[in-house]
């Protein structure tokens, strides 16, 4: 998995064994939070779409990669990362809109297998398109990145940019929470996830709601990509690497709920980070074991919106 991860050190610079060293824990916990926030940005769109319309978009990871790559192009063209942060998600949402009109709308009633197959095919298509446009090398932006350098947090030196990623994640969570609880769109989404037939009977334009939610989901995936890019570089294969953990988050967290996406992200992000540090060969297997464990106890995930 080409996921962002820290190099592990068995012994901290101060000579204590790692487990007793509080700076080790602080760093890894912050790393977990940062990975969790990226996973959250990706999984929240996927889970609401999944819960709302029973539609699974396996190409969601590809949108993440597109966000990073398009962000890279914008940043190098305009010399401004902030322009990239703003425009890349919009670009990805636009691509999502095209996908929706061409393919996804047609597949809505087609049943899960066709949806899976077509979006799986899209992964291949996107991968090669990305290779064609941006090549196969890792691409990174080194100048003009905000929050460069390190700051001291909880007595520990830590890259400021990663804290920025965590901050973005929290901001998005709060914004989505407010959106869901206090706006009309949010009410329509909650109604649609809970019971689409009744919602439709009550006048909710479920079609339009879904389209808007889908666009937001795509934008968030793009945002995750462009935000991750300065720290972790962009390359064509990054979409699939992040797809599996994202899917695991959606399944573990439970379909359709914000809470589930957050809980799942934290759980998987922490597992992967600590797993990679302690038992790098088995980190993926531990994640899978966690997935299995949760499913055995709660087949619908931890916090599904609809039981």
């Amino acid at each position, binding site marked *: 998995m080409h996921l962002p991860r820290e190099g592990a050190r068995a012994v901290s610079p101060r000579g204590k064994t790692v487990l007793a060293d509080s700076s080790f824990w602080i760093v890894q916990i912050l790393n977990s939070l940062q990975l969790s926030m990226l996973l959250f940005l990706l999984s929240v769109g996927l889970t609401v779409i999944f819960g709302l319309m029973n539609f699974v978009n396996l190409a969601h990871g590809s949108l993440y990669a597109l966000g990073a790559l398009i962000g890279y192009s914008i940043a190098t063209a305009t010399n401004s990362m902030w322009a990239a942060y703003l425009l890349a998600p919009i670009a990805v949402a636009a691509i999502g809109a095209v996908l929706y009109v061409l393919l996804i709308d047609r597949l809505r009633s087609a049943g899960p297998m066709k949806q899976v197959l077509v979006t*799986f*095919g899209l992964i291949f*298509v996107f991968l090669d398109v990305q290779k064609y446009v941006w090549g196969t090398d890792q691409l990174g932006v080194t100048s003009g990145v905000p929050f460069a350098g390190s700051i001291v947090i909880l007595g520990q030196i830590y890259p400021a940019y990663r804290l920025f990623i965590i901050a973005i994640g929290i901001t998005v969570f709060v914004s989505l929470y407010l959106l869901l609880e206090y706006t009309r769109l949010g009410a329509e989404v909650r109604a649609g996830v809970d019971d689409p037939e009744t919602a439709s009977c009550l006048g909710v334009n479920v079609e339009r709601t879904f389209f808007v939610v889908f666009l937001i989901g795509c934008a968030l995936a793009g945002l995750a990509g462009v935000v991750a890019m300065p720290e972790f570089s962009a390359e064509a294969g990054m979409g*699939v690497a992040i797809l599996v953990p994202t*899917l695991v988050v*959606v399944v573990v967290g439970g379909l359709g709920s914000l809470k589930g996406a957050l809980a799942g992200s934290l759980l998987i992000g922490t597992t992967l980070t600590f797993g990679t540090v302690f038992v790098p*060969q088995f980190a993926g297997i531990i994640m899978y074991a966690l997935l299995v464990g949760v499913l*055995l106890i709660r087949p619908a995930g931890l916090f599904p919106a609809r039981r």
Partner: protein
Amino acid sequence: MMANNAAFRHALALATIAALLLYWTQAGYFGMEILAEIAVFAILAMSLDLAAGYAGLVSLGHAALFGFGAYMYALFTVLWGWPASLAMVLATLSTGVIALIIGAVVTRVQGVFFIVITLAAGEMGYEFFFKNRALGGDDGLAGIPRLDLAAIGIDLNDSSVFALFLIAAAIGIYLLLLRLLASPYGAVLTGLHDNPGRLRALGLPVRAYQTSIFAFSGALAGFAGTLSAQHTQFITPDLLHWTTSGEVLVMVIVGGLGTLIGPVIGAAMLTLLRHELSNVTDYWGFWLGFFLILIVLGGKNGIVGWLSAGWDALRGAHTTELSTDDDAEKGEPSDAAR
């Protein structure tokens, strides 16, 4: 209805086998390599069709079982020095056991969750072998021996003999699966795809059957893996990669899900296509995905579906319509009853 087309599919199977054998008589060295590859993937594709097309269990990680079988064979022969025949049997069985364990867990969930988890499981498998230095890591394992049939005068190190051996294996598997599908177990499989709830209500322990077919399909995929390892005599973790799973899936879909001969045709087509297109473009993946999308959106069930519909249309033009008395009541509940 499937029953009407059984004869058609048998004819198609005979034609496919004949084509493969004919190709074999003409093939040079490179042709033999392609034939061998077709045969191996035909078996893998049939195993996926059994799970996905017949029992309705779509696995996006089937290549992981394929690769696992290959790696087990390599482990037993190269690292532990066991005889090839024993290694083949044990590699196949151990893959079946892994598939049984995965199946027992995964059949607890339905539909999309199931598909997603098979994808995750496949990726876990790839990662494990990628990171495992003992089995070569991403450098792979070389020096894998082929089965030794010298005792009966067959030299499998001759590529044309080996290609024929693999084709024979594929034909054997096809016949075996045909027999399986004609049995009560086979009937249950199709019923599982169609309406598992009713089977449960009628007394069938559905999950047990789904697990068993997943295990059997996995074992078969593992068997294909042992053959693949013997063919290339060098394996890498790429065998388990999701792109390989994707290719097998496309073979099944392109050929025709749930037709058994379809996947064989799909395997042949896709292997030939990949070899041709790889010379022309670096972007085989793009075309693979594109084909998959087109075929799925196209409506008919792959090549066999298209050919079968064409055949029906040809026949339909020559048979007279059978009229029935209850045509008047067709499909609508009668008003009088309510």
